[in-house]
């Protein structure tokens, strides 16, 4: 097989028309690329004898052996040698190099503390690198700049701090857990992947910022596991990062901003969007995004949902259905849609597993879209020195994630004794509140208010 050096294994397979990456354990059903951001198990394959490699974030290298996993699993044939364990001592550990994590790292480094930034992906930027549209907001949030270029600007800042020895960046690395540390220190274990070899690193940090992002929601319907059903992040990964078309004709589920924006990106990639269906009686995303799509001729069906997806080994089509005012399907309103791709943009759930493990107080806040860590307005959780930022503190969007990251970074530095950050912290908190003041910020306002109350009640 041929691919490009910068491809991931799964995108290179896709480019060759190989959509089935694994089989389900119980019924042996085909599984394909679903989330495309290293958060699900749909793309697990055996690479160079190592099972369960997430091929959507594993880089393609010349000469590697990629196999489908057998049902029952086989122990790794790769030889594991005893490797010396490395130890890193640092002021601030930042987990996740998306918009929130990058900003947290930069702000903390600006205050003069040492930062270790860890991310599972091959490059920094998180989901920003897939955002080809111009961002909203004000000049402070780089409004009018495309997400990918914001990511490039942030990367430049990170690189400068790297050169100056203020930020240590570890890519292709996963924080796997928290362990009992010495007094006032948090101990974490990190697995660093290099050429399909794993290295264990022990990190002792005084503070930690968790900016782990979120994972795509799944929707319940027959056929939802067929290869060709993707999360919105997955198609963005394929199209906008690796230049691979996920299919020829798409049915988009969800008319929030993500569904609208990704539909437009499909059109830009030369892929036909049959329609957008939305279960709610109204379009959830910004009208301006809907208008962009409509004037390209893509219809948006509100009060409609997907009933099922059909196909043998891959998506061959779908059935959509109209919903009544109680959101129940109306019998006889079913309509067949011929498509080879179904894209789900039905919301996200905060990634919080590490926070659970550390023992931070968690609670379910529906407006934050799931269980989130309780935190105050400095982004500090119920454990001193442990901060959250971005989608993992409640689903919102990239502009607010960046400010939350800045707040968390400054707050961590303040806790370490950098007094200069006080004014800056106040300024960022005000900026954040202002962005949430409008009607589209209502959900976030409610979520943060609830979290504040739960925090007081603890």
């Amino acid at each position, binding site marked *: 097989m041929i691919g490009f050096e910068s491809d991931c294994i799964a995108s290179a397979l896709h480019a060759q028309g190989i959509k089935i990456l694994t089989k389900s354990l119980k019924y042996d059903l085909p599984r394909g690329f679903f989330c495309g951001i290293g958060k699900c198990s749909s793309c697990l394959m055996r690479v160079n004898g190592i099972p369960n490699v997430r091929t959507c974030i594993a880089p393609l290298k010349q000469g590697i052996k990629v196999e489908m996993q057998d049902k029952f699993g086989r122990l790794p044939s790769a030889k594991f040698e005893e490797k010396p364990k490395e130890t890193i001592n640092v002021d601030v550990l930042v987990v996740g190099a998306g918009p929130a994590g990058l900003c947290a790292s930069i702000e903390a480094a600006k205050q003069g503390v040492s930062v270790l930034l860890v991310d599972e992906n091959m490059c920094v930027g998180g989901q920003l690198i897939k955002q080809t549209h111009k961002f909203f907001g004000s000049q402070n949030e780089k409004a009018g700049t*495309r997400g990918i270029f914001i990511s490039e600007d942030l990367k430049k800042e990170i690189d400068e701090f790297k050169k100056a020895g203020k930020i240590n960046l570890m890519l292709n690395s996963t924080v796997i857990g928290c362990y009992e540390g010495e007094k006032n220190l948090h101990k974490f274990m990190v697995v660093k992947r290099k050429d399909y070899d794993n290295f264990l690193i022990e990190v002792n940090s005084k503070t930690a910022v968790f900016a782990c992002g979120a994972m795509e929601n799944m929707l319940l319907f027959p056929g939802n596991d067929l290869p060709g059903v993707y999360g919105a992040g997955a198609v963005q990964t394929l199209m906008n990062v690796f230049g691979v078309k996920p299919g020829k004709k798409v049915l988009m589920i969800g008319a929030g901003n993500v569904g609208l924006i990704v539909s437009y990106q499909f*059109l830009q990639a030369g892929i036909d969007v049959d329609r957008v269906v939305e279960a709610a009686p109204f379009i959830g995303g910004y*009208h301006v995004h809907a*208008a962009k799509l*409509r004037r*390209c001729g893509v219809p948006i069906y*509100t009060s409609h949902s997907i009933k099922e997806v059909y196909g043998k080994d891959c998506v061959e089509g779908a059935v959509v259905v109209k919903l009544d005012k109680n959101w129940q399907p109306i019998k006889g309103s079913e309509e067949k849609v011929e498509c080879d791709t179904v894209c789900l943009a039905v919301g996200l759930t905060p990634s919080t597993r590490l926070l659970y493990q550390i023992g931070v107080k968690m609670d379910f806040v529906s407006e934050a879209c799931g269980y989130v860590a309780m935190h105050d307005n400095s982004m500090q959780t119920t454990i001193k020195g442990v901060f959250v930022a971005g989608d993992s503190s409640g689903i919102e969007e990239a502009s607010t994630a960046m400010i939350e990251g800045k707040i968390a970074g400054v707050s961590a530095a303040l806790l370490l004794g950098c007094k200069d950050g006080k004014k800056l912290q106040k300024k960022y908190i005000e900026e954040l509140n*202002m962005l949430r003041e*409008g009607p589209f910020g209502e959900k976030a306002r409610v979520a943060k208010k609830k979290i504040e109350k739960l925090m007081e009640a603890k």
Partner: protein
Amino acid sequence: MMLGYEKDGILDLKFLKLPSQKQLEKGVAIIECVQKIPCNPCVDSCPTGAISMKDINDLPLMDYDKCIACCKCVGICPGLAIFVVKCIDDKAFITLPYEFLPKPVVGKKVQALDRAGKIVGVGIVKKVVNKDKTFVVTIEVEKNLLMIVRNIKV
């Protein structure tokens, strides 16, 4: 109360403050931004201060008398929601944002589309400016299409 565009994504002209005939003849920018989104690059881009906003969550207000139809806001607006329109005799000139390939070519004919993507006429490309990877395209169409055409197909 749900508004029409919240259901189908198509804006009715009744939601816009429309310019007078005289203002149309000199050319003005129409801002088709009707929701309070925290966003204000259009205000910063305007060289004459024609666009104003109380705060970032307010709707942009356009002073058609101050607008000089320079088209700067067309390529800046992240929502691609600003269009410059101008009437000269029986011709209409529409400047719109366009983010697809191939790049429109000056002098060539393109299909003119309405807010629902329906082909409603033919446009002639008059000018193409690349503003941070958004093509700001001016087309000439029949006068009656001035407030109808909002997209093109090359």
